[in-house]
């Protein structure tokens, strides 16, 4: 009897913990993320609450390391292991802050996940639309989902109305490095300044 009570308590504890496993199907995966985000982005929630919880979602569902490598582009080949390690730490903090800040501007978003198209075994594009409101027109949002591990898909890019956020980020980082005589430390300084804002 004691054992049964213990199992029940354990199950309840397990279910109420935030150890939600997302679907391995890319379209369903994005649908679940969108549904989770909608609950956070309720208008009555504070900006701080939204940002904190969006960061939690981002940590679980995005390939931050992969995005960081992509945005550094050709410059990652010239970094020492120490610099690469420092970059990864800074980039994760920068990414989480930037990501949650951008999304927390939306309140009560209505997003329809429409379809998924596998580009190749590693990438699937999931198409969705942010429905229009009185103030804003509809927005087409495509999600680039990394599916190398079929059991654990991860987001690598958001393409909003044909504009890739990751590509924009990459060209932004390249501009900072190139305009400072290829000095990667200047990029680190800019990232620290952003994180500290």
């Amino acid at each position: 009897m004691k054992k049964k009570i213990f199992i029940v308590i354990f199950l309840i504890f397990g279910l109420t913990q935030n150890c939600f496993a997302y679907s391995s199907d890319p379209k369903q995966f994005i649908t679940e993320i969108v549904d989770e985000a909608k609950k956070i982005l309720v208008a009555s929630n504070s900006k701080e609450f939204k940002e904190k919880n969006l960061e939690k979602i981002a940590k679980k569902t995005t390939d931050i390391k992969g995005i960081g490598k992509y945005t550094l582009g050709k410059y990652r080949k010239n970094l020492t292991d120490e610099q690469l390690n420092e970059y990864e730490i800074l980039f994760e903090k920068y990414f989480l802050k930037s990501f949650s800040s951008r999304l927390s501007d939306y309140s009560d978003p209505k997003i329809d996940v429409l379809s998924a198209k596998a580009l190749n075994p590693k990438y699937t594009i999931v198409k969705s639309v942010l429905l229009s409101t009185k103030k804003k027109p509809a927005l087409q949002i495509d999600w680039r989902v990394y599916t190398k591990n079929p059991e654990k898909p991860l987001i690598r890019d958001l393409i909003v109305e044909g504009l890739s956020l990751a590509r924009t980020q990459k060209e932004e980082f390249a501009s900072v490095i190139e305009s400072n005589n290829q000095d990667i430390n200047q990029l680190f300084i800019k990232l620290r300044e952003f994180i500290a804002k």
Partner: protein
Amino acid sequence: MIRKFVYILIFAIFLQGNIVQAGSEGSENLKNSKQNNSANECFEGVSRVIFKFNYALDGAIFEPIAKGYRSLPQSVRIGTGNVVGNLRSLLTLTNNVLQGDFRGAGSTAGRFAINTTVGIFGIFDPATKLGLAKPQKEDFGQTMGVWGVNSGCYFVLPILGPTTARDAVGLIGNTFLDPVYQITHNTEITNGVVGNGNYSEHNYYYYRGTGAIDFRAKNIEPFNSLRNNSIDLYASVKSLYLQDRNKKISDHETSTETLSDDDWEEIDTD
């Protein structure tokens, strides 16, 4: 008018040839520019200064006007946007034809006809409800891109904002190809009677100004988000501008078809 058009084309080709030879700061090779969706900078230092000027001007003038416009009733804003969009479709129509997109031209012409008549000078948009979807806006810069003219170098114009060598030539071409410009600059109207009195060219600038304010009002939050989350706003705007132009010239509805996957392919994580 045809002679002016030919001169513009010759200038565009000449400009492209010279841009290939031009030096620039912190630039990527022209060979890679299409693959990497970037363009050489013409004069980055000057462009950055002009960018700062435009940014200050936007904060001081355009954004406040756009916020004021937003306070108007939604029906007024929608109607205004529709009228501006309807007039703008004439330039799209001209460029549909020049690009050989006759199906698109037919749809654009149909929309204009329906919205101008049934839609009462474009205030309403019955064409969309009848199944004629809004076309992508076309301009002469895109047309030259479709013809194979390379973008050339990137720079920033005062007030008008980011552009490339090709698109700057396109801006000039637009004035000759835009029926609205031609009518307002070449028509005398007095008391509603064509043929006597003053030119109505100021109406063209009212129409363009209204369109700019309508656009700015629809993008207040995205601009703020971009500004707050960029570590180099100039570079972000440049990237977004070039991606947007590339997508429009490709005319792809599937956004990812305009983006090369090459960079992503080599990045594997556990």
